[in-house]
């Protein structure tokens, strides 16, 4: 394995982690518009917290997928064709969600607005759930033939482990969203978000325990990467405890960043556990897709590395700047367009 191959494997991990950190709270806020908000004004307040930033957050996904296509075309091809219907569902969610922000603001009638509020909600639940399902089942191994094509059936996608992974990720995103709301609002919504988070963190610990147990049974992560897997799992628990502490003691920054880093740890767990593979075949380990044989040529990797290292600092700078510009907390009666 060359250094560049490793770098791009790492970079894709970072991009997915960034996506789930940033869009994670967007999804959580989207879920909160139905689960937390009590009236129209509160929904506006919640949507106002992510209005200016959600679009750029979603680009992290596009970039992650693009980087995967560019640096590991075999991985991209096997994964995306193998999870065809799952990805179709995710796309459906992202599409109805993406247009909701614009369309809901244009609706004048109560019913019309409600409709696009619902699509926003559904579109915020689908992606974390099905991404969770996809990545968890991928970690457990899927039937991949010697040509690298996945030939899976329903029971390969939906296992107790993958469903648990899906639920944990969805819950984590919801909690992350609640913490973000805690950070970005004042008023009733703010108080209620914290109350919800207090209760849900108990549920999360149960979910995490079940997830780790199933991880032990269903994957070879603990066998192959004993130290890394154990450390990351421990880290997730510590982070969740810290987040709970933050929620109970009104330390909003702590709660938000620890919940975000819990999600990042989950992504790290996946990437460490897979290493040096990118896809695990449940048919024969000879069919595993490896970093070494899935990647693009050294030349392509080199060109891409130079280009992205040039552009990335600017991207991070102006995206970070957006958060600085819109740093104020949103009140209930703020008139925010959207």
């Amino acid at each position, binding site marked *: 394995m060359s250094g560049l191959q490793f770098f791009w494997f790492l970079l894709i991990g970072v991009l997915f982690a960034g996506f789930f950190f940033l869009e994670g709270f967007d999804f959580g806020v989207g879920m909160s518009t139905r689960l937390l908000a009590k009236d129209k004004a509160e929904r506006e307040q919640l949507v106002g917290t992510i209005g200016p930033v959600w679009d750029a957050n979603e680009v992290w996904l596009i*970039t992650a997928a693009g980087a995967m296509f560019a640096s590991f075309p075999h991985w991209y091809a096997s994964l995306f064709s193998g999870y*065809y219907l799952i990805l179709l569902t995710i796309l459906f969610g992202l599409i109805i969600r993406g247009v909701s922000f614009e369309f809901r603001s244009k609706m004048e009638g109560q019913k019309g607005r409600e409709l696009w509020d619902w699509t926003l909600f559904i579109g915020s639940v689908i992606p974390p759930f099905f991404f969770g399902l996809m990545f968890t089942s991928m970690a457990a191994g899927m039937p991949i033939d010697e040509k690298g094509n996945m030939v899976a059936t329903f029971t390969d996608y939906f296992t107790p482990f993958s469903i648990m992974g899906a639920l944990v990720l969805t819950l984590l995103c919801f909690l992350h969203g609640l913490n973000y709301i805690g950070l970005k609002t004042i008023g009733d919504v703010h108080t209620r978000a914290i109350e919800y988070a207090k209760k849900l963190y108990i549920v999360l610990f149960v979910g995490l325990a079940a997830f780790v147990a199933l991880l032990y049974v269903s994957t070879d992560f603990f066998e192959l990467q004993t130290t890394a897997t154990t450390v990351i799992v421990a880290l997730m628990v510590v982070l969740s405890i810290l987040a709970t502490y933050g929620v109970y003691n009104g330390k909003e920054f702590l709660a938000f960043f620890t919940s975000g880093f819990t999600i990042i740890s989950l992504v790290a767990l996946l990437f460490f556990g897979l290493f040096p593979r990118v896809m695990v075949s449940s048919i024969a380990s000879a069919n595993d897709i490896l970093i070494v044989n899935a990647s693009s040529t050294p*030349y392509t990797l080199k060109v*891409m590395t130079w280009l992205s290292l040039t552009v990335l600092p600017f991207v991070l700078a102006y995206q970070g700047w*957006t958060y600085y510009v819109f740093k104020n907390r949103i009140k209930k009666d703020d008139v925010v367009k959207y």
Partner: protein
Amino acid sequence: MTTIFHFFFVPLSIGLGLSVAIMETMYVIKKDEMYKDMAKFWGNIFLLSFAVGVVTGLIQEFQFGMNWSDYSRFVGDIFGSLLAMEALMAFFLESTFIGLWIFGWDKFSKKVHALFMWLVVVGAMLSAFWILVANSFMQHPVGYEINNGRAELNDFGLLLSNPKVWYEFTHVLFGAVLLGGFFVAGLAAFRLIAKKDIEFNKKSLNLGLIIGLVGTVLSIGAGDLQMKALVEDQPMKFAATEGLYEDSGDPASWTLVGWQDTDKNESVWTLEVPYMLSILSYNKPEGSVRGMNTINQELIAEYGDRNYYPPVKTMFWSFRIMAGSGAFLALIAVVGLWFSKRKKTLWDMKWLLYIIGFSMFIPFIANTAGWLVTELGRYPWTVYGLYTIADSVSPNVSAASLLTSNIIYFLLFSILGGVMAYFVRKEVKHGPYHIQESENEINRKNDDPFEKEAFK
């Protein structure tokens, strides 16, 4: 299908975005509030098309892996890296600054705010650029070598300097500019017929026509260069757009309209303009052009026995629709601008306003037709001369999955397209001054202590 739909909204985003950026710049320079109202109003419509354009673009990126997995493996080295660059350089720029533009009206100075829109437009254009670099590779592969059954990149610079890139990019870009211009002009014309916001719509109409005219002239120019390059590059595509089966005489005459028998591979009848095809192909009234039957033999000799005839009729008519539209739009823009210079005349000529109004749909048809020529003309290749369409599909995706996804996409797009058209209509009906009014209304409502929600 997804590509065509995507190709409806992206040029609209680029074109409208550019129009809005120009309006806002005029506002900064001339300090005329009307231009600010224009930027806000047309900006609202731009945002609608942007929202739909983004989500359909998302599908595009995923589809390569989902539906064309073998193709992705074959060209990932090249194609994938271009898509990644598109995301990194273009999408982040667009999506970040669109957020700043929407929510930044009160936070930034006029100049900075106008700059945001320009950055969004630059992002959109960069995105078009990278995707057309990728498409140009498919039309005319360069900078690669075949190893282990894959196309491997060996010269990134060649990808960018592929002459195809610059023909395609300029043609598509100017096509988007003209589309944006005529979209603004057309909607404004309809509003003038209804006698709504006269001054505002006059100004919009005028600016739309100017942008439209510039875009049309430049895109015709770029298209002409592109076709001349085709004679060498993809003679089959060129011959098919001309419906030319047998080698032409010297000098070659141009078929204005004609009918082809695609079973017998011959033209049934044609109406021709002498010398014209030679001029179109070589810029001089001499020289013959090879016909499809000759080229087919050449291609068989080069690439093996296969049918190399693209869908001739579609190509032939698509090209005529595209080129005809271009000529017609140029004429409309000139006539419209000429009358608008003579005070009061254009605004009283209802028939002309109707023509301009309905002209806003023509660029959409022309763009789609142009896209068909480009893509169908590549038949039977996904990468010209290297990789066929049949090789490209995902072997593990079932027909049922494909059918399901196509039905879902179709329904979803129809709904989204419909909803968007509905919103644009509504937005236009309300006119530019509705937003401020409704905002005041909301504020008043919030102050009302007897409002129902206050008691909840």
